[in-house]
């Protein structure tokens, strides 16, 4: 972590933590004040995160998306961005109380990840690679938010089936709305994921002379791609709807998590050594 950044980091953790607490409290109570306050803190957290990343970019002289630590921050930033965009543009605010604690957890986890600067080999300074990483993180963040809507869907569905509606569920949006956003987000995520895989392949072709080398990371990305493709296919063909689709989406995100957090530690080698 860069010097002086620690204070900012502590501050942003505070923002996300307090926002989480307020969002959860808002789910229990009535009135607008809690939500407004939580939403403000969440936005401040977003600003703090932006400043932190910008400071790193300026002091290191490269866009900070190369180390695990950097991608974690960027991922958190992108998820925050997607959520704020959903709220701003569509008034879809139900994900806040579920996403805020997850964001806090990720940012807290990032504290224990090495924030060391890496010296990149020259071939990493490529536009192809840059956009490969940007698009993959954008894809992951939309998948993450889609995953949250799926979890909410399963929660509401479960309680409707069991005929016991908690006060929490009475505050959540309808199945129809959750399903709608779920579909939209996965579609966008899938599009970004596809582009990212191609960009990565072209970069690999440029640098190593091979589009595809069956690396663990590549294989798992393929698995992710197949699961989400299945999700879209089954939706469009009308085979599965509702609950099963939500579960399929959850599976898709599980492969993303596995790829991002687990594959790196066990199969860390080759082209994706930094990720």
């Amino acid at each position: 972590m860069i010097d002086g950044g620690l204070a900012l980091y502590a501050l942003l953790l505070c923002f996300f933590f307090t926002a989480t607490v307020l969002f959860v409290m808002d789910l229990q109570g009535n009135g607008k004040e809690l939500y407004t306050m939580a939403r403000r803190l969440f936005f401040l957290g977003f600003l703090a995160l932006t400043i932190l990343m910008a400071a790193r970019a300026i002091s290191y002289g490269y866009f900070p998306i190369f180390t695990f630590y950097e991608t974690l921050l960027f991922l958190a930033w992108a998820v925050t961005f997607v959520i704020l965009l959903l709220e701003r543009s569509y008034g879809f605010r139900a994900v806040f109380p579920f996403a805020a604690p997850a964001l806090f957890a990720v940012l807290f986890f990032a504290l224990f990840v090495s924030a060391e600067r890496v010296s990149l080999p020259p071939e990493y300074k490529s536009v192809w690679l840059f956009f490969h990483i940007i698009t993959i993180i954008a894809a992951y963040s939309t998948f993450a938010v889609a995953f949250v809507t799926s979890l909410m869907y399963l929660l509401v569905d479960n309680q409707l089936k069991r005929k016991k509606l908690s006060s929490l569920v009475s505050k959540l949006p309808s199945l129809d709305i959750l399903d709608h956003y779920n579909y939209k987000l996965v579609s966008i995520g899938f599009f970004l994921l596809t582009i990212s895989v191609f960009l990565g392949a072209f970069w690999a072709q440029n640098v190593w002379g091979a589009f595809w080398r069956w690396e663990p990371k590549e294989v798992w990305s393929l698995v992710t791609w197949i699961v989400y493709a299945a999700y879209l296919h089954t939706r469009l063909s009308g085979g599965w709807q509702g609950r099963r689709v939500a579960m399929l989406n959850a599976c898709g995100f599980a492969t993303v998590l596995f790829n991002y957090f687990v594959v790196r530690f066990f199969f860390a080698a080759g082209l994706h050594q930094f990720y």
Partner: protein
Amino acid sequence: MTEIMIMGINHKTAPVELREKLSFTESQLTRSLAFCKASCEISEAIILTTCNRTEIYVVGAGEELLRLRIMQLLAEIKEIDTVALRPNLYLHTREKAVEHLFTVTAGLDSMILGETQILGQVKDAYAKGKEAETVGAVFHALFRQAVTAAKRVQTETGINQNAASVSYAAVELAKKIFGRLDNRTVLVLGAGKMSELTLRHLYDQGVKEVIVVNRTKERADKLAHSFGGVAEYYENRRECLIKADIVISSTGAPHFILEREEMAAVMRARRGKPIFLIDIAVPRDIDPKVNELDNVYLYDIDDLQAVVAANLKDRQHEAVKARLIVKEEIAHFQTWLKTQEVTPLIAALRHKAETIRQSELDVSLKKLANLSDKERKHVENLTRAIVNRILREPVLRIKEFALEDRSEVFVTSLCQLFDLTEELNGQPTTLQEEELVGAVAEGGRQ
């Protein structure tokens, strides 16, 4: 001393037959308010009449006199034996009366706890009183504050959030599944009374299409017609199930008319599109196993009643919060009311000062005949400013003491110090006039 009093009956104290008898028609209401306006004991009156309660609110002098007048009103206009009515009547005065109105307006005294219809009815009653000119400063402030309290209860608690009846519960569940209902199709299986009620609630949410299926086509036609829908033959019900989003089932069939296997086939044909089945028939129409299918949400009458029961329990919970809000708002009103007690005194004091100022000014201005208009005005303003400055502190103190119920000391001592007996008798006693005097005084300060 003026008194706030309320006398009435409601669903807790009287059976429906009696409530019906005491309910006021439009013309009776007008006559009653005219009666109140004419009687010298009553200075303000508002009559609240709904299907669950009839309540007469009055402001006037002396509890016993007011009570007799109201009895007389009931005897004259409703032609009721008021003695026989005694055990069903309740009567509250002062703080109790205020508390009663606030509780009623907030829906905390309603048959369905927290319902909001009563708020509109209270507003109506107030408007009627205003029309008949039986609303004065006290009821103006009292009812306004009660309405404020009720609105706060609605926005700050969840008391009216969940459905309190089976048909509303069905609508709410439909909304939880489908969000907006305006592009949805409702299928009614069996054109019974209960299904009509539920359909009515759904229809009010603007559903796109209504299909009615009944063994006898005529009844299906009739119900479909009144909701702008279509009637279908019973044999075609499967196609209808494939098309519909919400199904209300209440046939008189002695066995299940929809089994799991059939529904599974319907779901395949629907390509898994979610469906909400409301089975309000007894015995049930739909095999409960149908609920095991994905994206099928089946609620029978017991399930809906359980939802309502849970909701009502939540309302009880929220009512605790609501009562705290009501208490706060009552305190606001009481503060106003107490300062109101000293209003005549303040008005008298201001009046006295104003009289003195005016007479002294006249004397001086006569002596200063060659003043320019501007200078005259200046002198006038100067005298007003002095009077206002001198009175400001005592008026504040009087109001403060009134809140602590110590205004008696002031009334007597100020009366003697300033010789206010003349002003206090036959001087303005209402808020508006006090404000008027205040406004005149304020105006002079510029």
